[in-house]
Structure formats: C-alpha cells, structure tokens
C-alpha cells in the first residue's frame, strides 16, 4: 500500500513547485554539454535530438509511463500490484490511471511528485543520447527514449518513489529508511548511465576511434564554451532538483534546505578541484572537458546524498568523484574500448553509484547501507540487462547507427540537410574513405 506522506505546508508546496520549474536548467545544461562534446558537423542534430527526446518522453510518460509509475495516491489503482513473498508485501508495479486520469483531483503533493518524475524521465533519456553522439540516428534516439519513458524509468521510479518495494525496505525488512534517492541519482543518472553503456555497445564506436593499430584516436569535443557554460547552467538546475527532491521525497523541513544546497555546491566544487589537480599532474595542464565531466560527476553524486550528509562528508564524496573521473574515463577508453563522447558512464553511472553508496555509509539509520546496496544490485542486475535487451530489440527493428555516409559527412547534413554552422567549411575526414 502506498504510504501516506505527511501533509506539506503551503509554503513548502509553493517552494517545491518553484524549484521544479527551475529544474529544466539542469536538462538544458546537460544538453549543451552533450552538444559541445560532440563534433561540429553533428551539433544541430545533437541539440535537436535533446529537444526531441524531452518532447517524446513527456508524451510517452503521460500516455503510459505515469500509469506504470503509479504516483497518484487517492486515484483508483494507485496502490499498485502487490506480490506476497516470504510473508512480506512486494509492491512491484504501479497501476495508476492512463493518460493522467485523476490528476486534477489528486492531492497537491502527489501532483508535485508527478511533475518531478516528468522532468526526471527527460533527463534520464538525454544521457544515452549524448553517448551516441555522431552516429546515433535521431529517430532511433527517440525510440530509445520512448522505451525508457514507457517501461524502464516508470518501473524503477515506482519502486523508489511511489511506495514500491525498494522504498519499503525499511518498513518490511528494518533496513534504515528504505532505499533513498531524493535527487534521482539512481532513477535518473545511474539508469541513464547504464542506458548509455547499452547504446554504446549496440551502436559501436565512431568510425576511426579505434584504429587497427595503435592507441584510440582522440576525437575532442568541438566547443569548450558550450561544455563549460553547460556546467554553470547545470549547477542552478541541480540546486533546484536537489532541494525539490528533499522536499518532495524526504519531506525535509525548510530549515534543512540551505545545507542541502551547500552540499550540492561543495560536492561539485571538490570534484572539479580534484580533477583539475589530477589532470594538471598527469598532462602538465588542466583538461577542460575532464574538469567539466568531474563537475557534473560531483553534482550527480550530490543528487543521492546532498540532503543526507554533512558538508564535510559532501566534500569527501566530491573529492573521490573528482579523482575517479579522469582515471575512469581513460580506463574505459583505452583499456575497455568504450567510445563514450559525453563520458556518461563515468559521470552519471559511476557518479550516481558513488553518491548512493555515500548516502548509505553516512546515514545515521541502521541498515541504510544494506538498503542502498540492494538498490544498487537492482540497478546493475535488473535494470541494466533489461535496458540492454529492450534496446537490442529496438535496434533489430530500427538500427541505432547511421550508415557510413552519415558518419562521413556528419549527422547534420545526413539527417537534417543543413549544418549548425553554415558559414564554416565542413572538414571531411579522408581516412573514412
């Protein structure tokens, strides 16, 4: 049964709503970063793809996903489907009305929760799009986003946020307060990061990335200004997202919000400083795109734990994220042959997992770490294989990867018929011929 949340004051409701209206800045920031990290001849396709994915996820989530997520207490069927196993109830699937039926009569707090999920699903679906840059077809990207919005995200969101079995681990198995994910580190970022890995494995690397002989070829992002400005916009969106999450999912008092905001900034700052230092030592100069990745990884980690830890702990989490980010990006590219232009696996999957673990380690409740580990096990052992299977099936019907000509001339000309920078001379890489 869906637990009844404590009533929200009018002030808290208004604040949460205002914060959620600012949260799309995080989506805009990630879209800019994705575009900047891709190549100039695919920039318009990349940014249009981001916008199209937001549109597709909104429609699909309204049509199907919201019903599966079942986050409207008070409407028929909102209790969800419950399986009894080991004398305990396992709420595994939402059963809300289709097409947002009953939204108008649902409690205001439930409507806020639904709005949070509407934004969260768009962010989750953007993440694999960035990883497929320069070869992922626009329509295939939209199809993948529709799969995430219709099935995978709503299922996991129900488990975490709508009285599902993960959120009830505390009540049913005395594991702390149940699986905690106030800012969407698991339901948005780890899910998105694992989806990115599935896309990369299915679509394969960009042409020329891994030549027959020698090391991987560096294909740097085309616009560092987009990347770094995207980081700045993301900070505003992330602050809004983390504070809104604390209000909506943790029912935090207003007095707890400044610490959450400070923790968010500290986590990102520590991550950036650590990567700045690591890249300065390794390469002689700081690397702008890796610093941007670290900033984002710090923000992602804060999504899980900013509302639950102290400023000192948040600094430590960000510092670890900052040290790990450049090393993991290098490891994935050079040792594991993964071509991830946006660094989504490192930033979103690894950063999110780090934050979820930190939330368990630093939480005062007994058993919280085990609850977080069960949530991580669910992401790795259920969500990732499910996403891979669904994407593999979509790829059989509608291939993810553009043809060789598309890669050669760039996705802008191939899919849109015009480039993002029409006054530029398009450089065609002759080695592709």
């Amino acid at each position: 049964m869906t637990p009844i949340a404590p009533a929200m004051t009018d002030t808290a409701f208004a604040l949460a709503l205002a914060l959620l209206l600012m949260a799309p800045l995080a989506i805009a920031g990630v879209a800019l970063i994705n575009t900047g990290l891709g190549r100039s001849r695919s920039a318009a396709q990349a940014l249009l793809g981001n916008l199209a994915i937001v549109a597709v996820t909104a429609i699909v989530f309204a049509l199907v996903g919201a019903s599966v997520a079942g986050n409207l207490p008070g409407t028929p069927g909102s209790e969800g489907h419950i399986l009894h196993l080991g004398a305990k109830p396992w709420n595994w699937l939402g059963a809300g009305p289709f097409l947002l039926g009953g939204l108008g009569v649902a409690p205001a707090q439930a409507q806020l929760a639904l709005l949070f999920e509407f934004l969260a699903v768009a962010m989750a679906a953007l993440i694999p799009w960035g990883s497929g840059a320069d070869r992922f077809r626009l329509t295939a990207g939209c199809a993948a986003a529709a799969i995430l919005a219709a099935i995978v995200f709503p299922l996991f969101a129900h488990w975490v946020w709508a009285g599902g079995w993960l959120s009830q681990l505390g009540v049913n198995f005395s594991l702390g307060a149940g699986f905690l994910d106030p800012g969407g580190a698991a339901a948005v970022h780890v899910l998105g990061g694992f989806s990115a890995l599935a896309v990369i494995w299915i679509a394969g690397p960009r042409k020329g990335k891994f030549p027959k002989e020698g090391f991987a070829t560096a294909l740097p992002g085309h616009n560092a200004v987009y990347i770094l400005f995207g980081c700045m916009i993301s900070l505003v969106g992330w602050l809004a997202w983390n504070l809104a999450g604390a209000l909506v999912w943790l029912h935090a008092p207003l007095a707890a919000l400044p610490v959450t905001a400070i923790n968010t900034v500290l986590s990102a700052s520590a991550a950036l400083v650590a990567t700045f230092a690591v890249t300065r030592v390794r390469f002689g100069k700081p690397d702008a795109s890796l610093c941007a990745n670290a900033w984002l990884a710090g923000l992602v980690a804060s999504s899980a734990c900013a509302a639950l830890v102290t400023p000192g702990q948040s600094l430590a989490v960000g510092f670890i994220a900052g040290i790990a980010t450049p090393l993991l990006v290098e490891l994935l590219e050079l040792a594991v042959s993964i071509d991830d232009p946006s660094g989504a696996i490192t930033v979103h999957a690894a950063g999110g997992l780090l934050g979820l673990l930190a939330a368990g380690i630093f939480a005062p409740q007994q058993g919280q770490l085990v609850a977080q580990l069960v949530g991580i096990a669910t992401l790795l052992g259920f969500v990732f294989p499910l996403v891979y299977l669904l994407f593999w099936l979509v790829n059989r019907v509608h291939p993810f990867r553009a043809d060789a000509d598309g890669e050669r001339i760039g996705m802008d000309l191939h899919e849109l018929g015009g480039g993002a920078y029409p006054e530029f001379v398009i450089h065609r890489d002759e080695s592709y011929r």
Partner: protein
Amino acid sequence: MKYAGLLVMPAGFFLSIAALALFPAPAPRVAFVLCGLGVEALGLVVAVRGHMEARGEGRS
C-alpha cells in the same frame, strides 16, 4: 560471451532479493546481498571482456 555476462547479472539480483526474503538475521543477509553484487560484478566483467574481444576482431 557478452550475452553470457548479461545473463549472469540478473542471477546476482535474484540472489540479493532472496537474501531479503530468506534471512531475517542481519549478518547472513548482508553476506548474501554482497554475494549478489559480486555475481553481478562478475557478469559485468564477462560482458566487458566479450565486448573487448568483439571490438578486437572488428577494429576499423
């Protein structure tokens, strides 16, 4: 090999779930949840190795 790894990963998930249902005591429960995560990690490593082998054969 990649698919074998991906098939092993849900086994780890079900091991973690079984730990919750079968063991009320904290120690064996934690041990089994960790074992489940270990199985998942093993599956991921196998899948990554499979990916690397496939890439090695198909380098452009």
